[in-house]
């Protein structure tokens, strides 16, 4: 049976058109995302692993190497079984750092553009000829189906269509964060076509050719050598080496890396793929032995590589060969499309962009468009290169058929690098490059060059290259052995640089890239301005907006502490566009860090906290324990009932606990990382002045905040990493406002109680002048015309009323509710203060028989609150009065003692019992009968003096006792 070329061309066009339709339907959401992004679709898309070499070539491989052909898929199975320890860590890295290809991954891990360039060149060298084989497979198929000579136009048309599809659906976005869902679904559909086709051909072989399973078994019993030929190479052939090669290829081949990691939308889909993809491979290969035996039984007279097509052409059906043709077309087109996209990404990031760096873009050029069209151009060039190889292959006939495995060996050279990346933290750039060059050299001289020379493409007249040729598996072993050896040796000899070590730690989850130094830019606008110099204003704005969105920030909430985070995020996002090395160069050049300046601790803490929040679940062992301890300490600080503020050396807020947030009404999130100057008043003033104050504590600081009175105790301590270096200051704030308020009420009550005790005296003091005024009034009434008496009488009345007024005024002043923190302390004359206290105490009837001798110098001034200090002396004089006997004397003396004034209140009464001396200032301690004293007088006196920064002591003398009050002295400024 044969087909006309136009029929196959039409079917091809219709099939590729269907692929376009599927991709478009997915991108336009005509296919629901729940289906398009289903894990099974993702798994099927990984079926790009099976190329036309698998589709057609497996039968030929099985004929030559028996079941060894399964090793090509069993190695991939092992790689997917090991996905929790192999693929998942790579997926996390590619996602976190927006790595778009294998070259990006190595360039990132080994901190080297050279590594990226080498991997790219190596992948190009290993994959381009393999791409040409896919075109060859299609043209061979056409040749057999049409039974005519090869048609070059068909190959060219195929390449053009594939290129168009790759550009339209694979290069729609330039960032790896934007997934190509249409491409994934189309590739998954192609895998499904391959699977269904091979299963159908397999069933046809069993039921259509043999007549059923029973007949197949009969054939095998009659031809035991057919089955034995499959098993023998497993025991004797390069089974293990093939498995190792396919293990590496399963995730290192550019197309595999692209589909597994770059196009992954859901990490959980990898879990499904870890068993579903091996199942796909099993189903894909289960038909191979029956097809082989069917082809052999039919004596088709064509190479076993084409048995898949050959046995269907032997049938009477026209559908089956056409389906097989489509299966082969699917295998070839999927491989070329995805490989082209993966290679284009590598070439752009590691060859084109580094060659044109710095990007000489004028402000008018849109960088996104530049990159997008650049990538599209590279796609065209790669497909053109593949087509050129195909033409060369045509010219030199079948000399390149071994390129499938040779490509696998090339890719496997990255295996030591991956092992280092995932499991060996000391692996260095030098080791990786040396290993890759060594392995690549052995691969080239033992496989690639001999193959090209055999095919007649190249010739080395002075060197007998074919003599260097060894088997593919031997070459794989030797190249990998020397690659690994060089990798280890050079890693030991040339250890990692500092930057490399940081990246290595990040890869090993032992840390993350903490920005060292301080970002020079001070605002987001400056970031934008700097970035615009290289990527244009619009793109810079767009990238910053995108990075802010990734961080959950916006222009309003961003602050100085967020800038390092923003810089890091921009670096990652740019990495997706231009590769990790160039993005780092752009960021380092244009968003510079002042490494001379130690990074702001606030910035670092915020950065580490935000990263730690994301990676906490991944901490293990001691790190996890330490993190738990750290969280506990952090929570202790957060829940402490004292306000805790820590301030960095450059006056940025490092921490702000819950009590501080309650006290100030300033939210923790909005203030941490901010300069201290950004805090609302009066807190900014309070904290700034306290930090600059040489004293390490301030007691009873009074402040009015939002019309409320506050009394605060402030303490501070210097925080140091070590003995020499100061890292910041921690400030503790105690809020005593409530206690003070209660004490105020208590003091007021005590004053009222004092006035109550004075009531009798007050009545007497006021009664006497009133009586005098009444007598004078009577005199004036009796002699109204005597001007002398009238004048004297009026003078006396005024005098008496003044006396009453003084008493009332003193009482009112003494008894009113104190609002002492509405005003600051005043300079007071000690003598006047004591006189006022004596005047009040004189209202007490007991005081009538006593003498109060105020010996204080009128030039002594103290700093304090008048009412409070009067209360102090009223309490002291009242006690002295109570203790004194009739006719006694109470002396008040004062003398200067440096910066303080010592005032002595001395009585000559009965003194204080020795056992009472220690308790006399305790609240509610009294020696008076119940109802006569509250026991709060001396306690309040003590507190008031403390509040004034003074002290009080009591001692018994030979006769009576003595209170000594020490208060801060005030020096009036003299002109």
């Amino acid at each position, binding site marked *: 049976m044969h087909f006309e070329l136009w029929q196959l061309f039409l079917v091809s066009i219709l099939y590729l058109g269907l692929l376009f339709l599927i991709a478009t339907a997915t991108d336009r959401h005509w296919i629901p995302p729940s289906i398009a992004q289903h894990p099974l679709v993702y798994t099927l898309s990984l079926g790009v692993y099976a190329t036309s070499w698998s589709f057609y070539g497996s039968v030929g491989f099985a004929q030559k190497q028996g079941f060894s052909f399964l090793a090509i898929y069993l190695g991939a199975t092992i790689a997917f079984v090991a996905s929790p320890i192999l693929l998942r860590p790579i997926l996390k890295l590619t996602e976190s750092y927006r790595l778009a290809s294998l070259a990006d991954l190595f360039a990132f891990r080994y901190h080297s553009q050279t590594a990226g360039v080498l991997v790219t060149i190596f992948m190009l060298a290993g994959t381009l000829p393999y791409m040409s084989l896919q075109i060859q497979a299609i043209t061979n198929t056409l040749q057999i189906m049409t039974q005519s000579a090869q048609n070059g136009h068909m190959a060219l048309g195929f390449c053009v269509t594939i290129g168009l599809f790759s550009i339209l659906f694979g290069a729609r976005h330039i960032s790896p964060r934007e997934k190509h869902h249409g491409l994934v679904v189309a590739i998954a559909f192609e895998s499904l076509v391959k699977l269904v086709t091979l299963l159908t051909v397999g069933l046809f072989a069993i039921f259509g050719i043999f007549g059923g399973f029973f007949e197949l078994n009969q054939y095998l019993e009659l031809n035991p050598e057919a*089955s034995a030929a499959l098993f023998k190479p497993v025991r004797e052939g390069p*089974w293990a080496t093939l498995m190792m090669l396919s293990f590496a290829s399963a995730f290192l081949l550019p197309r595999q890396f692209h589909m597994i990691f770059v196009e992954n939308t859901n990490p959980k889909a990898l879990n499904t793929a870890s068993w579903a993809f091996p199942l796909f491979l099993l189903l894909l290969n*289960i038909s191979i032995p029956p097809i082989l035996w069917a082809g052999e039984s039919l004596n088709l007279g064509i190479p076993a590589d084409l048995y898949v097509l050959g046995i269907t052409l032997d049938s009477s059906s026209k559908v089956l060969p056409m389906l097989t043709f489509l299966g082969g077309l699917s295998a070839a087109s999927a491989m070329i499309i995805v490989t082209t996209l993966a290679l284009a990404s590598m070439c752009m990031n590691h060859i084109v962009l580094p060659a044109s760096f710095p990007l000489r873009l004028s402000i008018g050029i849109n960088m996104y468009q530049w990159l997008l069209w650049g990538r599209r151009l590279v796609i065209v060039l790669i497909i053109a290169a593949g087509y050129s190889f195909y033409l060369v292959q045509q010219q030199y006939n079948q000399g390149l058929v071994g390129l499938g495995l040779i490509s696998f060996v090339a890719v496997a050279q990255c295996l030591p690098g991956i092992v280092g990346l995932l499991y060996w933290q000391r692996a260095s750039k030098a080791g990786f490059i040396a290993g890759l060059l060594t392995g690549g050299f052995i691969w080239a001289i033992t496989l690639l060059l001999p193959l090209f020379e055999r095919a007649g493409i190249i010739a080395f007249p002075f060197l007998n290259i074919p003599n260097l040729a060894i088997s593919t598996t031997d070459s794989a072993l030797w190249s990998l052995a020397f690659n690994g050896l060089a990798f280890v040796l050079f890693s030991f000899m040339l250890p990692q640089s500092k930057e490399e070590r940081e990246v290595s730690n990040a890869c090993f989850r032992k840390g993350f890239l903490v920005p060292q130094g301080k970002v020079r830019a001070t605002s987001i606008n400056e970031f934008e301005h700097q970035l615009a110099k290289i990527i244009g204003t619009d793109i810079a704005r767009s990238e910053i907006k995108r990075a802010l969105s990734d961080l959950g920030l916006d222009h309003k909430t961003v602050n100085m502490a967020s800038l390092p985070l923003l810089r890091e995020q921009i670096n990652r996002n740019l990495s997706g566009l231009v590769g990790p090395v160039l993005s780092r160069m752009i960021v380092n050049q244009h968003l510079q860090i002042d490494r001379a300046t130690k990074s702001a601790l606030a910035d670092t803490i915020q950065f580490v906290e935000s990263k730690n929040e994301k990676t906490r679940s*991944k901490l293990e062992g001691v790190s996890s324990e330490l993190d738990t301890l750290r969280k506990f300490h952090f929570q202790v600080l957060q829940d402490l009932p004292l306000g805790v503020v820590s301030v960095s050396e450059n006056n940025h807020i490092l921490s702000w606990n819950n009590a501080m947030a309650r006290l100030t009404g300033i939210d923790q999130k909005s203030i941490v990382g901010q300069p201290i100057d950004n805090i609302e008043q009066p807190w900014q003033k309070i904290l700034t002045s306290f930090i600059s104050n040489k004293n390490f504590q301030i007691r009873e600081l009074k402040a009015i905040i939002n019309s409320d009175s506050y009394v605060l105790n402030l303490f501070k301590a210097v925080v140091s990493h070590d003995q020499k270096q100061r890292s910041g200051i921690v400030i503790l704030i105690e809020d005593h406002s409530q206690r003070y308020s209660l004490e105020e009420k208590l003091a007021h009550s005590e004053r009222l109680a004092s006035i109550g005790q004075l009531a009798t005296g007050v009545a007497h003091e006021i009664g006497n002048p009133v009586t005098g005024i009444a007598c004078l009034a009577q005199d004036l009434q009796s002699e109204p015309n005597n001007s002398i008496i009238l004048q004297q009488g009026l003078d006396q009345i005024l005098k008496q009323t003044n006396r009453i007024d003084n008493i009332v005024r003193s009482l009112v002043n003494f008894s009113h509710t104190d609002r002492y923190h509405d005003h600051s302390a005043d300079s007071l004359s000690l003598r006047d203060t004591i006189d006022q206290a004596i005047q009040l105490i004189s209202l007490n009837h007991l005081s009538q028989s006593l003498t109060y001798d105020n010996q204080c110098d009128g030039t002594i001034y103290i700093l304090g609150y008048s009412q409070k200090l009067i209360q102090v002396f009223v309490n002291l004089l009242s006690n002295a009065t109570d203790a004194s006997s009739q006719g006694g004397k109470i002396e008040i003396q004062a003398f200067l003692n440096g910066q303080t004034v010592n005032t002595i209140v001395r009585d000559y009464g009965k003194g204080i019992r020795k056992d009472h001396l220690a308790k006399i200032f305790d609240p509610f301690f009294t020696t008076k009968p119940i109802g006569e004293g509250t026991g709060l007088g001396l306690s309040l006196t003590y507190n008031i003096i403390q509040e004034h920064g003074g002290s009080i002591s009591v001692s018994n003398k030979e006769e009576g006792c003595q209170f000594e009050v020490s208060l801060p002295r005030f020096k009036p400024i003299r002109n």
Partner: protein
Amino acid sequence: MTCDGRRVLILIDVIVTIGNTLSVDLISVNILVPRSTPETRPNEITIIVVLIALLLLLPPIVVLWSFNDSYWLVPYLIWSIIILLSYWLQRHLKKHAL
């Protein structure tokens, strides 16, 4: 029972024995890791499953199922066992949220 059937049973027995030995060695006796923790457990279980899969596919075990007169579906049966192990591994990790 056919020769193939007996061989498969022997093979399964060998796999179970090896699996048990590995489990004991790796988890209880702590050959690979000094102490099993919830964080390291997924890796340990994965390593065990990968080692079992490799043992099934590498010499000398491979000799047990690759005799000339073995039934042609035996390699696929071995492959299926590995796929089932991988499926079990994923279910186990998901179930225990490891």
